[in-house]
């Protein structure tokens, strides 16, 4: 490598080195000719060569539905806000933050209305948390075999969220002794709301206005959303406009008709808030093709709504034997944890699978264990292990 090539590689790090190498047909060549690059810009855009995007289904009513995060095309633990999954119940409202207010009322001594500017004056916190729709991987209940990570697992994303702890707001308002639950309501067209146990939101609920360092995007709740760490995505109410403290759950449509988990005997579990430990190998994964035998790093994501991921084990023989993967530190509670394992592929057909263990000791179940316990009508909270089959030609398929 000549001097110019070296400087270029050094200044752009590994990405620059990869780019320089991929240009060359026979090795490292000088990039010719030199040209001035693009000028300064006010708001960054990704390279035109990068194409990872959310998968948006064709729907008659595109205001209600979900789009999925391309998890296999993300690295580390943070999901870019532009790729965070969407689940809307009545479209994305266009909200002028100067007009938006949050009403805090109910069983409190002093009901309060906050403007966005006032909320931003209050004590703030930042935390990295995943948000996962409880419908994520839901199709696996009936027909296992989601073709790829995005289709099967893409209703989960992880961001740094910044905002005001719910506790700060409720302390200001002064809770009355009958207070037991909190209703959180959005400003979308359907005014979606959920009931949440007061103890949980006082512990770590966050009224967030920022995501990954900038204002929350409209599709994620701009200008304000509730973050309930580890709880099913639907409780993380977007476009938040009202918190009402009450003495009982209000049995919202989205906690009775939906987001309840039907069991084989016809009864349904209700208020199944926590997202249980889950993991998925994102590389190699369904839809990809390995170019040939040799070295690969198995990579994936693990998370638990009940705390930290304690261990992730990977099997390259369909679950017969397991080996602990390396976990990226810091391992944060209710956040994605990246796992990695070096692997030499001999070129034969193999099945690879991961299982997560969280700090409570809970082990991510196999699909069989899960359906033995709950049947296949639950729709929500599927967290079974995902097996990928790598064929001798290197193509990776869902099992």
């Amino acid at each position, binding site marked *: 490598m000549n001097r110019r090539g070296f400087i270029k590689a050094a200044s752009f790090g590994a990405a620059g080195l990869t780019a320089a190498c991929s240009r060359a047909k026979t090795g490292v060549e000088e990039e010719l000719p030199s040209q001035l690059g693009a000028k300064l810009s006010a708001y960054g855009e990704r390279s035109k060569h990068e194409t990872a995007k959310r998968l948006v289904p064709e729907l008659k009513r595109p205001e209600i539905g979900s789009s999925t995060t391309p998890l296999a095309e993300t690295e580390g633990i943070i999901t870019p806000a532009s790729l965070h999954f969407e689940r809307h119940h009545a479209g994305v409202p266009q909200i002028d933050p100067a007009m938006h207010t949050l*009403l805090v009322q109910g069983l409190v001594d002093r009901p309060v*209305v906050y403007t966005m500017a006032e909320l931003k004056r209050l004590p703030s916190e930042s935390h990295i948390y995943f948000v996962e729709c409880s419908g994520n991987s839901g199709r696996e209940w009936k027909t296992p075999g989601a073709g790829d990570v995005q289709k099967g697992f893409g209703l989960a994303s992880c961001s740094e969220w910044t905002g005001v702890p719910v506790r700060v707001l409720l302390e200001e308002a002064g809770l009355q002794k009958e207070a037991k639950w909190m209703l959180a309501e959005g400003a979308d067209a*359907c*005014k979606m709301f959920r009931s949440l*146990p007061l103890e949980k939101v*006082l512990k770590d609920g966050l009224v967030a206005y920022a995501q990954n360092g900038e204002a929350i995007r409209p599709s994620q709740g701009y200008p304000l959303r509730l973050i309930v760490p580890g709880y099913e995505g639907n409780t993380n109410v977007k476009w938040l406009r009202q918190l009402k403290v009450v003495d009982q759950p*209000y049995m919202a449509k989205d906690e009775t008709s939906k987001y309840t988990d039907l069991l084989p005997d016809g009864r*349904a*579990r209700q208020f199944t808030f*926590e997202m249980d430990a889950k993991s998925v190998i994102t590389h190699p994964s369904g839809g990809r093709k390995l170019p040939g035998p040799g070295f690969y790093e198995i990579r994936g994501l693990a998370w638990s709504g009940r705390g930290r991921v304690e261990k992730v084990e990977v099997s390259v023989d369909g679950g017969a034997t397991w080996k602990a993967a390396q976990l990226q530190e810091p391992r944060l509670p209710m956040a994605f944890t990246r796992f990695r394992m070096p692997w030499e592929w001999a070129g034969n057909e193999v099945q690879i699978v991961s299982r997560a263990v969280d700090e409570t000791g809970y082990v991510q179940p196999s699909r069989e264990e899960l359906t033995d316990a709950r049947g296949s009508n639950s729709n929500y909270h599927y967290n079974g292990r995902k097996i990928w089959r790598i064929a001798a030609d290197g193509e990776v398929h869902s099992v």
Partner: protein
Amino acid sequence: MERCTVFKPALLVLLAAGLAIAQSPKTKVGKPATPADIAQRDHFVSPDGEGLPPGKGSAAEGKKIYERRCAECHGSQGQGKDEAPLVGGQGTLATPKPLKTVGSYWPYATILFDYINRAMPFDNPGLLTYDQVYAVSALILHWNGIIGEHDVMDASTLPKVSMPNRDGFVADDRPDTGQIKKKAKPRAK
């Protein structure tokens, strides 16, 4: 907003000590909410009917508004069209093809009013008057065989409607799969 107040026993002596938090404001940022502020935004209806507004309607009165505002998505008799059915499905919840409808699944009639009132019609929520919401709620309950065609639904009668799946929900008793080394942290009940 006129409210139907319901006496509630003081069952919440149960309040955990951990919930007792400072009772005086620290920052005094934010403005006191007036009763008008609250009335404008608070449309929640509790399972015992608190929050139900004045007004009334019957299934017979609901037919016309249903045909105009609901049938396009939910079908002429609530059988479903682009959207899932509102009617039928009783007795299917324990079968391989459960049909979850207002009649077979929803545990409270109050939330039917709340949901139609806050979220329907899909493309224009808030369009219906309270009388119309009561009437359409009554129609869906009637089609499910739960009330009569001329039964009047209002703030006092709606909470008393006995829904077939009222006792069909159970508390979260996970973890329910094996290999659990120690019990997961209990959640507030």
